[in-house]
Structures are given as C-alpha cells and as structure tokens.
C-alpha cells in the first residue's frame, strides 16, 4: 500500500472539512443528544431497580460510552466514505475512484473524513473514563490493552459488515438507505447483549455482529469476558475481513460503469 497517497488523501479531506468550522457545534450537539438520551433512559430504568440482571449502573454507563465511542469512529470516516461510494455507483463517478493508483477497497473505505465527528469520539472517551473511575474493581493495564485490542477486532467486524452492505450497491444501485439497516441494528448495541431474550440474541449476533463490537469490549471493563469469547471475536473478525474482501472483488467485477 502506498502511504504517501493515503496521506495526501487525508490532507485533502481535512482541508475540505476545516472550511466548515461551525459543523463542529452541530456534531457536538448531535452527539451530546444521543448520549444524553441513553443516559436519561438508563436513569429511568434504574428508578425501578438497582441492577439489571447483575449489571450495575456504572457498568451500563461503560457500555453506553463504548457505544458512543464506536459510533463516533464509524462516523469519522467509514460511514461517510461508504455513503459516497454508493452515490458514486449511482452516478457512474466510481470510474474516477477505480483509476486511482491505490487498492480500490482502501479508497472507498477512507475517501471521506468527517473530522468533526471527533467530538463524538471524545465524548465517548470522557464518558468511558468517568464510568471506569467510579467502578469498585480497578482496571489493570492488561485489561486496558485487551480492551483496545478487542475494540479493534470489533471494528474489523463492523467494517466488514458495512463493506458487504455497501458492496450490494453493485447489483441494486438504488440502495442509499442500505446503511440504515445497520443504523437500526446498531441501536440494539446500547444494551449488553445478555439482556435480550435468547432467540433474539442469536439473531442479533449472527445477523449483525454489533454485539461483538460494543458488548465484548465493555465486558472486558466489567470483568466479564471469558477466553472463549475473546478467541471467538478474534476468529470472527479475521474471517469476516477475508469474506468481505472476497465479496468486494466479486462485486467490483460486476461493475460496468455508468456510461459504458
């Protein structure tokens, strides 16, 4: 991979974004609202009980914080890039992407950078730190490291899933709202997977792997993660990355351009 091209790409995106500085506030407002809704929701739940199937309020705040953090990272580059990609297919401008001297999967994955979404990433991080600092059991350095590793693995899973959804555009063209499927499913990640009834849990886990992305990192912080789950997540992440790569290549071969 050519890092200089990658770097140029990011700089250009960054310059574009810095023109619209007021967007920072609209993004911040947006993410504060989402986080606020989740927290207020939690507080309503905890007027009726002092734990939720063993999850204490602080621990659930950690889940919500992870949810916000990951959402921010997705909004930063992956989601807007795929949105542009889908639009490009519809308009036939994907041709310009394909002739760039880089792997096309990389270009469509990072072509847009919404730097202001960093507000959401930071907000999630702050919430995470507050949640952790209030927990009775301390978090060791090993757990911190494990948290980061498993978060990256989880992002790998989500990324592959989004890539496969977006790749469908090669066949169906009119799929601007295909990413909405993900958006709807992701809502379920606000809560630890354990609270969903069993049949629903399997549907959610295997249809959309949100669970691995949000719940499993949160489980590290709340001392709930077993070795099995860790290896399952790692295996799934690698498998899905390979699968989505293959699917992307198949889709690409199917692309015929708009004017040809």
């Amino acid at each position, binding site marked *: 991979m050519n890092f200089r091209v990658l770097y140029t790409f990011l700089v250009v995106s960054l310059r574009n974004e810095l023109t619209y500085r007021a967007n920072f506030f609209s993004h911040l407002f947006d993410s504060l609202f989402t986080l606020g809704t989740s927290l207020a929701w939690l507080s309503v739940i905890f007027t009726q*009980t002092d734990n939720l199937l063993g999850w204490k309020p602080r621990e659930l705040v950690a889940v919500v914080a992870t949810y916000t953090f990951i959402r921010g990272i997705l909004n930063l580059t992956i989601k807007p890039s795929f949105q542009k990609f889908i639009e490009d297919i519809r308009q036939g401008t994907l041709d310009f992407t394909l002739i760039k001297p880089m792997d096309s999967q990389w270009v469509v994955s990072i072509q847009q950078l919404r730097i202001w979404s960093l507000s959401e990433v930071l907000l999630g991080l702050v919430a995470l730190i507050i949640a952790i600092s209030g927990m009775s059991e301390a978090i060791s350095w090993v757990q911190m490291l494990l948290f980061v590793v498993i978060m990256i693995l989880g992002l790998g899973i989500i990324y592959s899933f989004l890539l496969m959804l977006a790749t469908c555009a090669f066949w169906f063209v*009119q799929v601007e709202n295909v990413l909405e499927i993900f958006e709807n499913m992701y809502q379920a990640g606000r809560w630890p997977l354990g609270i969903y009834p069993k049949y629903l849990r399997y549907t959610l886990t295997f249809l959309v792997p949100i669970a691995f992305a949000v719940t499993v990192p949160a489980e590290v912080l709340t001392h709930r993660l077993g070795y099995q789950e860790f290896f399952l997540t790692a295996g799934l992440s690698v498998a899905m990355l390979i699968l989505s790569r293959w699917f992307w290549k198949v889709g690409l071969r199917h692309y015929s351009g708009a004017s040809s």
Partner: protein
Amino acid sequence: MFKIFCAHFKTNLAVHLQYRVALGIRMMGTVLLPIIYLATWWAVADTKGGTVRDFTKADFAAYYIAMMVINHVTFTWLAWNYEFRIRHGALSSLLSLPTHPIYRDFAQNISYKVISFFMIAPAVLIVSLMFKPHFQFTIASAVFFGLALLFSYALRFLLELNLAMTAFWFTRIKGIGEVYFFILFFTSGQVAPISFLPDWLREAVRFMPFYLILGFPAEVVLNKLSHAEIVNGMIMQGIWAIACVCGVCVLWRSGIRRYSAVGA
C-alpha cells in the same frame, strides 16, 4: 376535494410500490425499537422476580406491541418533507398548484400506511408469537382503542405539521426535530409506561399531547384506564387538535409570506 385526495393517493401508492426495499428497511426500525424497549423492561422484571409495579412480563409485551402499532399508524415525515421543500425551493412549484400541499402530505401518509400494513401485520404476528403478550379485548375496549387511535393519528399529524412549519424560519430543523423526539421519547410512555415516572412529572405529562399520542391509546387497549379517564383523554386530544389547527393556520400564513425560496 375527495377526487383530489384520490388522485394524490394513487400516484403516491405507485411511488411507494416502486421503493419497496426502502419501505422494508424503514419498517425494520419500526419493529426493532419497541423490541429493544421491551427487552430492557423484561430484564428489569427478571431481576425483580417477574413484575415491575403492576406490570407483568406479558403486560409489558402487550404494552410495547401496542406501542409498535400506534407509533406506526401515527408516524409522519412532515418535518423532513417541509425542511427539504423549503431548503431546496421545491415548495415553489407546489404553491403554483391549485391545491394546498397538505392534501399531498395527507395522501402520501395514508398510502404509505396502506402499503406498509402488509409488512407490519405479519411483523406484529411474529413478535406476538415470540413474546406472548397478554391482551384482554372486550368490545368496549376495542371500540375505545379504535377511537383513541384515530384521534391520536389526527393529533400527531397536526402537531408535526406545526413542527414542519417552523422550517420557514429556521430552514434547517434537524435540531428542533431532535428535541421533539427526545421529549416524545420520554413523556409519551415510550421509554416506560408513564405510571413509572415520578408523581409530579406524571401528572404534568398526562395533559401533554405527547402522552395523548402514544401512551394513551396503549393504556386504553391494556384496560388500564377507567371509562371516565378515557373520555377525559379523548377530550384532551380534541382540545390539543384544535389548538394545533390554529397553530398551523397562523404559522402557514405568516410563513408563506416569509418564504422566498432559498437560493432563488
């Protein structure tokens, strides 16, 4: 007037039929969100040994399935529509037509509901089989529910029309919309039945349109209200609906004078 509606209805029906996939995707959210609320309350009930206040797990299931139906029936896109029309100047061409754009909005909403009925009905059936809700229908409760639902449809349509009209002044109303949905989420009985709220808040919420739109019909179908309370609720729905009609008239008249087609 009816002929105009029919014409709009037919064209919109055709449009919605073209975008079946988009429709299905939207329905996914409609079905999934109440299930998430339900799942959290089931978890609370499990933690507390089966019931929360006077709600059993089967009651929660019935409540949130009713919510799913009510929210689906009353849902509108008026705010998005008007924001788009005003921001892109698309309203100009609508204004040159001999009928008010509201006919179009109404026909669009009804035709969407007609088509999506064939998706929501099986979804409700499947969810009911999964969660085994406890419903106790009597003829009276069914009639009351039907009426309450009809009123809440009218009320929500008018209320959100007011919200949509604010686009004349603000052009982008995403922020206002978010605040609206935040209030709706917490005071309509979506996050929890309003009997779970603290006393002072519950009494205030009972008279707000948000509860009357969603929570009220759901409590009617669950037989949680006395006949007097039901009648009172419907009167409140009527009063709010009239207030909203007045609001729309005022906002539309002064808004249309302000409107200059953005970018024209």
